[in-house]
């Protein structure tokens, strides 16, 4: 981890952070730009964490917004209803989301492929319906009066931490186990990998960071409502990952940035925006099923020139 490349990247990110922070101080960037920057940050956390589950472990989960909502609600309960400080709220949100990941992951990860996708979708919806029917958190009208604490600095350093931690998991022995499960679960099991354990770990870590993104989201937009965490949100996160390239951290970061910028730019045409969104999704799948930078970090493409172009590596 602590090699030359890591320090180079860290330095580069710090420069980017410094420049942008300077521009915010100098009022070169107004609030609209800051909004977009924070949104990009939150989306990167969501995309990178979902990528750990979908891209690296090959477990197709489409209930990520559910975990995000757990983080958002629990952190907001801590800061608003229990009047605790933000850091504690943030931590509570992450831990609660991770626990939700554990509770949901243990039974559902026995399922595979399509069935797992549908089960996670179902759980995501159940979480939303629970918030909708809980008066303590405002029911359908949502929880409001959340203090705005998230800013560019918080977002930047938490995004940085997320990427560093997940990259390290992926490049460790544990990460090899996750990729082995993705490539062939039965073979991985035969090699002595405890597949259930690793799948649950990936799920819990992914949920933890989704909770982090949710907590940041809650403390930026003043209000959280159950309907903003529906399965449309889950699909949105999925699109970041798929467009960027399943299993490539650099790719999904790029995907999250690109799509957030496009959607902010098209904000005035909300109808058209969603049509473009879906067309991007379909066309990417037909013409570039591995995403823009799919498998880029694995460098498989280099070894196997021209190889198959169907993205079979992610089949469950």
């Amino acid at each position, binding site marked *: 981890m602590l090699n030359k490349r890591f320090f180079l990247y860290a330095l580069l990110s710090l420069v980017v952070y410094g420049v942008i922070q300077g521009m915010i101080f100098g009022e070169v960037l107004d609030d609209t730009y800051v909004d977009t920057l924070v949104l990009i940050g939150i989306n990167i956390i969501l995309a990178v964490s979902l990528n750990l589950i979908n891209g690296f472990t090959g477990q197709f989960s489409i209930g990520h917004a559910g975990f995000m909502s757990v983080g958002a609600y629990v952190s907001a309960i801590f800061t608003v209803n229990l009047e605790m400080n933000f850091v504690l709220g943030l931590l509570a949100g992450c831990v609660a989301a991770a626990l939700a990941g554990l509770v949901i992951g243990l*039974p559902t990860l026995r399922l595979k492929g399509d069935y797992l996708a549908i089960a996670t*979708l179902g759980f995501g919806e*159940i979480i939303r319906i629970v918030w909708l029917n809980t008066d303590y958190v405002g029911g359908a009208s949502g929880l409001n009066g959340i203090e705005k604490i998230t800013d560019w600095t918080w977002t930047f350093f938490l995004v940085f931490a997320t990427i560093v931690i997940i990259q390290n998991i992926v490049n460790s022995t544990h990460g090899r186990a996750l990729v082995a499960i993705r490539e062939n679960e*039965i073979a991985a099991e035969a090699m002595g990998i405890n597949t259930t354990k690793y799948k649950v770990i990936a799920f819990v870590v992914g949920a933890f960071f989704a909770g982090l993104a949710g907590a940041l989201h809650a403390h930026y937009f003043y209000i959280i409502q159950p309907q903003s965490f529906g399965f449309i949100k889950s699909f949105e996160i999925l699109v970041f990952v798929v467009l960027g390239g399943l299993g490539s951290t650099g790719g999904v970061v790029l995907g999250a940035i690109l799509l957030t910028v496009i959607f902010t730019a098209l904000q005035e045409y909300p109808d058209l925006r*969603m049509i473009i969104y879906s067309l991007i999704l379909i066309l990417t799948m037909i013409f570039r099923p591995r995403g823009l930078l799919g498998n880029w970090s694995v460098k498989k493409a280099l070894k196997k020139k021209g190889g198959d172009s169907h993205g079979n590596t992610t089949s469950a």
Partner: protein
Amino acid sequence: MDYLVQQLINGISIGSIYALIALGYTMVYGIIKLINFAHGDVFMVGAFVGYYCTMAGMNIFLSLVLAMVVCALLGTLIERLAYRPLRNASRIVILITAIGVSFLLENLGIFTVGPQAKGVPDMINKESIHLFGDAYVDSLQLIVLGVTVLLMILLQYVVHRTKIGKAMRAVSYDMEAARLMGINVNTTITATFAIGSALAAAGGVIWAAMYASVDPLMGIIPGLKAFIAAVLGGIGIIPGAMVGGLVLGIVETGVMAVPGGSLWRDGAAFVILILILIFKPTGLFGKNIREKV
């Protein structure tokens, strides 16, 4: 007792719509192992065709037939443009494409007709028929049940007695072997999409008649529920989809009948899904198939 019978009647009429949509899911899954997420939106398009036909003064049966034809064409088109290029791709890639198609249909709907719900005029004169005690069945519910049963018998006939049905069963059993036997696999898959979409359209028109309202996002929840019904009965198994739809409809009305239960209506369906996936993932009628390495 009267109350119970009344709830049962309501449950069966909503359940038969779920069953109609579920059939499309199950047929497509049976043949190319794809959860066609866009199916719920084909149902939506069917409901809209029904709405415009009624506005143009057609009666319910004519609207039904027209909606079925339009959606059969739509289903064919979707299969041709979005799914056929991906025939050999991994299943996750096709699944994501299906999600994309679903989004596209919903948002094209919002773009062309606007997001507001439209009120549908009465398609038939509703008459309540007194059964006994406090139990009533209205004429619309009878038509719903009649149409559903008729379509299901028709489907059984097509699948088990015609050449294309035989081809469908063969392709679903083993695509490669079917191709070797000279079956045109692509035509068969297209036919499956056409039939499934036509059934969804029928469900859509009936839904529009029952709830008197259509909007571009109306397909999402019934689509998901129908999918749950298909999984409940054992996905890929046609009688399973029918039973699953009816069971789901009855359970849902049961949950709504409990005081304070109406908010949990959608939750109940998802709880059923999770339970069935955990305890019997192959569904009520499914058989366990050993995975080969």
